[in-house]
């Protein structure tokens, strides 16, 4: 039936091109479509699923915080930069959550994992979920997060699961650029005006303790990440914060949250509202494919 008078009906009608005129809803929603899903013999499927889920959740939550900068960044170019960095992380999240679903073997897709889990089921580090502060905090968080994630993914590029290894190899290219972006802003703000320097100092003091949860998770990258951070701070003429990264709790929220709790589903009060916004549209129509 054709109804040219109604724009929505004409959109829904059958077209001679078939669904090829649509970018979405064409059965291409799986970012790992066509990738051999088999796990190599000897790979611990549950451990692989947990690893992919944790790294996917880090990326998804960090991407959502970066997206919140759109329309709020200090200049248009920076807004575009933060959105693009978020987009890279969102892409990594899609691939990792898809892989997590396959390894888990319970039939959950990336959408099931992104949209239909509650806060206690998320495994992201607390650093990723903290609310956005000023631009210096944005830069400091991106510097810590991307320095750590770059080192982690670089190691995973040699993982025994070829799919995780390939996702990590691609991520290394992207994270290198993200870390450089944050590092260059750290230098610019630290070595800028008195105001920008003070803000950068405050942001680093505030976020430095979160290195504790990152290193607790991935102790083998500690030296490498600290070395890179010291190099950036030296170039920015900023002191290394004296707050010890091994502090067991931080004031992540009104209630002190246990550092490292994110990987066990123990989150600050800030994750639930973030997820509520992220998941609201999908949950309003659970049968839809996005």
């Amino acid at each position, binding site marked *: 039936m054709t109804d040219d008078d109604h724009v929505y009906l004409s959109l829904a009608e059958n077209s001679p091109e078939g669904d090829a005129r649509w970018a979405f809803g064409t059965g291409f929603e799986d970012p790992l479509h066509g990738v051999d899903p088999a796990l190599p013999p000897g790979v611990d499927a549950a451990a692989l699923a947990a690893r992919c889920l944790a790294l996917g959740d880090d990326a998804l939550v960090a991407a959502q915080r970066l997206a919140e900068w759109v329309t709020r960044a200090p200049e248009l170019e920076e807004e575009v930069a933060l959105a693009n960095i978020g987009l890279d992380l969102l892409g*990594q999240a*899609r*691939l990792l959550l898809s892989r997590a679903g396959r390894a888990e073997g319970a039939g959950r897709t990336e959408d099931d994992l992104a949209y239909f889990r509650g806060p206690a089921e998320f495994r992201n580090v607390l650093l990723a979920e903290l609310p956005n502060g000023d631009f210096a905090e944005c830069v400091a968080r991106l510097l810590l997060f991307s320095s750590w994630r770059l080192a982690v993914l670089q190691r995973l590029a040699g993982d025994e699961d070829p799919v995780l290894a390939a*996702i990590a190899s691609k991520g290394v*290219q992207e994270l290198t650029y993200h870390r450089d972006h944050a590092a260059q802003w750290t230098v610019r703000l630290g070595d800028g005006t008195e105001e920008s320097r003070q803000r950068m100092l405050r942001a680093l003091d505030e976020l430095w303790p979160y290195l504790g949860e990152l290193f607790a998770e991935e102790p083998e990258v500690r030296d490498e990440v600290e070395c890179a951070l010291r190099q950036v701070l030296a170039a920015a003429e900023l002191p290394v914060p004296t707050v010890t990264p091994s502090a067991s709790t931080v004031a992540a929220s009104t209630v002190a949250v246990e550092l490292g709790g994110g990987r066990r589903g123990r989150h600050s009060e800030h994750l639930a509202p973030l997820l509520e916004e992220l998941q609201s549209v999908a949950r309003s129509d659970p049968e839809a494919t996005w």
Partner: protein
Amino acid sequence: MVNAAVSDPPAGVEARAREVAASVADPELPMLTLADLGVLRDVSVSADGAAVSVGLTPTYSGCPAVAEMRAALDGALRAAGFAEVEVRTVLSPPWTTDWITAEGRAKLAAHGIAPPGPAPVRASGPVPLTLSPVRAVVVCPRCGSADTEETSRFSATACTALRRCRACREPFDQVKEL
């Protein structure tokens, strides 16, 4: 498809499928074909000549153009008479800007976009930091001057940076090295 494993598709069919897939335009840089961009990894056709399978690699993990590329490949190959089209994701080895062909680079420059220099070499060990804007020579695609500067590390897409030519004063995009 009984003899799929032992027989080849009719002569010329695979070459035609390859040609159709290769000529699909990139949705974000439409002066380039997918072949110019270097994202087509393989094209094969079933023994009966009806089904085509295309390997496509993403430029960036989150590149939104990938869904468009898949849809465009599907549409073009169906229009060319293939009843079944499968577009597979190929993740390894990861795409780098070195996969952009010489012809692709020439087309970018002709359309006012500076092509990328050589992709960074990945040595083993920690990835080195770049603490100041790169001083690499990027030639202005408009006037040919090498006196250009970076104005933003990200432009309209993840794959481009924004630069300005000090000689002709024009801003331009550069496909950044990945």
